[in-house]
């Protein structure tokens, strides 16, 4: 059954339908745009390298989901890139902790490109030779990130916050884990995770919606004997406190870079409400309109690179603040003071209303871009939700919800500081 959501504030419709194979479709029609985009999202990310199959514990080398993403682009006769280029389309993909997504964008031939997308994602071609060939490329990708101080700072923060979460492993794995991956492993992993009930097709643009459903129905066939997988992220064993309060690394960098993180618990009942509260909360305390932001700027402790965010996956969540500063410890201290003040006095309703307006407005801005819509919905798919749900949660959010979030989340002991500073 198709369900259609309409939202007057967003000025958009969202069509969702689960097809006979179990694959879920999310379609956001956009008139007047030249671009059309479609994505296949698979609920298989870098964190899924260890899991339980029935009663058996299975473990693959770290980075296998990302390796798979690279390898699905290998066509038997011609590369997937070439096939899309012929159709005048761009194709790309990404892997994060929870998802792998493959997507194209085009300005015509949407139906053909959609068939192509569904075909290549469902027809892997792994040989020992082409798997080995990919290793050099992926190791260069890993090396590229190693030289990025922002990435290093973030990785170090995750490792400081979590005891045993798979988010502490690099998405691409390590040189060693990548080298140990074989064609058989990829084959094995593919058949375990690339199954229609674990997948979604997300489309945005101007096209015939029924034709899209027909194509997906026809090209995604139901699978029998889908294995029963239990994901093991260890979130139930993850303590409230962080593993390490502070971590410092040295590299070639001019001004010290910091990430401050607050680890959140992951057993929320309504993940989208939690997301709305988390995003609003940190923006209120340390975002651009906050007193703290003014203070940091006035004391030369922050510049335009400073930002705050709340991120929630299916099994992890955290608040993060990031920026360049000569004195990250002072930033940390001022932040903790500010949090204590808010915890004591509560949040003012004026601030709350203003921030609510900001976040709903920013969500509306997402709908300016076909690409932004598709990418955002990929993320919501793994949360078993959609973009419209976030708006609803923003609208329903009360001051009390945010105060409760503050008391439960931004607590002493749940925070860690990661610094990357210069070698000089």
């Amino acid at each position: 059954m198709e369900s259609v959501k309409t939202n007057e504030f967003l000025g958009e419709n969202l069509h969702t339908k689960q097809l006979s194979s179990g694959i879920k479709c999310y379609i956001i029609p956009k008139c007047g745009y030249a671009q059309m985009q479609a994505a296949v999202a698979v609920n298989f990310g870098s964190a899924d390298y260890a899991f339980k199959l029935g009663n058996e514990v299975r473990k693959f080398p770290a980075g296998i989901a990302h390796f798979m993403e690279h390898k699905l682009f290998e066509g038997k006769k011609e590369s997937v890139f070439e096939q899309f280029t012929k159709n005048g389309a761009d194709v790309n993909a990404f892997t994060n902790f929870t998802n792998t997504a493959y997507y194209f964008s085009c300005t015509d031939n949407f139906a053909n490109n959609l068939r192509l997308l569904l075909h290549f994602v469902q027809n892997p071609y792994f040989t020992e030779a082409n798997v080995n060939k990919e290793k050099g490329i992926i190791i260069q990708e890993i090396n590229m990130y190693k030289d990025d101080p922002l990435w290093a700072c973030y990785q170090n923060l995750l490792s400081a916050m979590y005891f045993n979460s798979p988010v502490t492993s690099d998405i691409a794995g390590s040189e060693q884990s990548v080298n140990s991956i074989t064609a058989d492993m990829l084959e094995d992993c593919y058949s375990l995770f690339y199954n229609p009930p674990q997948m979604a097709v997300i489309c945005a643009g101007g096209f015939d919606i029924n034709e899209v459903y027909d194509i997906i129905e026809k090209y995604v066939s139901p699978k029998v004997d889908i294995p029963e997988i239990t994901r093991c992220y260890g979130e139930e064993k993850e303590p409230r406190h962080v593993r390490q309060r502070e971590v410092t690394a040295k590299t070639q960098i001019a001004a010290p870079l910091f990430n401050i993180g607050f680890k959140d618990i992951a057993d929320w009942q309504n993940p989208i409400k939690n997301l709305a509260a988390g995003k609003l909360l940190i923006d209120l305390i340390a975002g651009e309109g906050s007193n703290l932001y003014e203070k940091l700027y006035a004391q030369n402790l922050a510049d335009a690179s400073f930002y705050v965010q709340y991120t929630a996956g299916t099994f992890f969540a955290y608040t993060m603040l990031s920026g360049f500063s000569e004195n990250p410890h002072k930033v940390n201290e001022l932040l903790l003071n500010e949090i204590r003040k808010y915890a004591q006095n509560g949040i003012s309703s004026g601030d709350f209303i203003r921030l609510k307006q900001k976040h709903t407005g920013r969500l509306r801005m997402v709908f300016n871009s076909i690409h932004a819509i598709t990418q955002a919905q990929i993320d919501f798919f793994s949360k078993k939700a959609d973009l419209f749900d976030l708006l609803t949660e923003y609208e329903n959010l009360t001051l009390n919800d945010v105060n409760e979030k503050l008391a439960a989340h931004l607590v002493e002991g749940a925070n860690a500081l990661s610094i990357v500073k210069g070698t000089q």
Partner: protein
Amino acid sequence: MELINISNGVKLHALQTQKFKTVTVCLLIRRKLTRAEATLNALLPGVLRRGCEKFNTLTKINRELEGMYGAVFDADVVKKGEEQIIQFFMEFVNAGEPEINGTSAGKIPADKAPKAEYSPAEPPQSAERRALSFLAEILQNPLTENGGFRADIVSSEAENLKTAIEGRLNNKAEYAKLKCVEIMCENEAFGIYGDGYAEDLPGITPVKLFWHYKRVLKESPAEFIIIGNIDTKKTAALIKELFTDLAERENILKVPKTLPSLPREQIKARPALPAHVRTRPPLTSRGHIKTVTEEFNVSQGKICIGLKSGMPATGAPFYSLTLLNEILGGSANSRLFVNIREKKSLCYSIFSYFYRFKGIILIHCGADSDKLEEIFALCEKELSSLANKKVSEKELSFAKKSLAKKISALNDSPAQTADFYLSQYLQNDKVPLTCFARNLEKVTAREIKETAAALVVDTVYMLTGSGYGKEA
């Protein structure tokens, strides 16, 4: 895009469209890119962004924006050819838009319309007026003291700019491209950094910067590019009413059109390079290539190859260079990507970039430091293959299709539309976007071959790990 003259040196380029949820405003204050002025201009946006008379703290500024459904505001400098543009950017939700062809740009119910929470005494105003008033305040009424900008703001922003300049190396790929351009165009304005120089900062006082700002306001051409659901005539009137400092100006500075980069033979004196930079013997026997290697403590090396065509930024050469770049390294189906990444597994990232105004193409690749020489040889091989053998009709048509798609998708983004239009305007190129794909369609395989043959490898910049890059 409609062009409206507001006053001497002030133009409004307006695109009325109901496609977007927002109205996008770019205010561009144009300066000639010079070494003497680069840092002054680069420092200005940071200082202006810190406050104005009406919104005299960051909190007030940001709360005003948040209260407008999270309007986006930014100010920075953009290097566009040999112009240094001080850019103010705003994007705001336009309340109460009408329904259009079955879809709706989105309505804000009356009870949810943005309210000015922090100035309740003021009468209600449209989102557009509120946004443009904000921008006019920021531009025209900065925070001053003792005949200059507020000293604490200037020193704090100078510190921030210094961090940003020294932080260029944080992104190694971007750094390599910047260095390559700097070396390649060392005697041209294009070789000047758009974000300025740390060594200039101590000499900039609040008074000096303020006088520079006054001069900039008095003599610089200003362009408003506005895209969204607006009434262009009303918008023009609003600009006239609010931006009084830009009205009735005489003697507007003429910013010359950027010309293509000169071949190296024509460049004379070359300044000495800093000590940690070593010039090395050429990678090949072609003695005119300038090669610079810098060593850092990195896992991956970078190579950036600068190519000059000497060709203009408009007309047939432009279309042919655009296509050549697409075929060479513009996509995941390009020669460089397929032959060096996919077939040889030497790298992850390899692309080429076309700098239209200067007729320059840069190839950038990240790989093991000891493989950079090999990468260079392979790039040369691809270049000479393009210069010696016509590309197949199939390859040419794929590249044309791919570009046609990118061009028609430009209209889907207000920021990209504004940027494209600005490039056309600065080059005095009257060809509308709708004719681009058709002009590209006309380019032949022979023209691609001739264009490739005209490309000269000018500069090779390499960033290597310690101990690599030893002289051969």
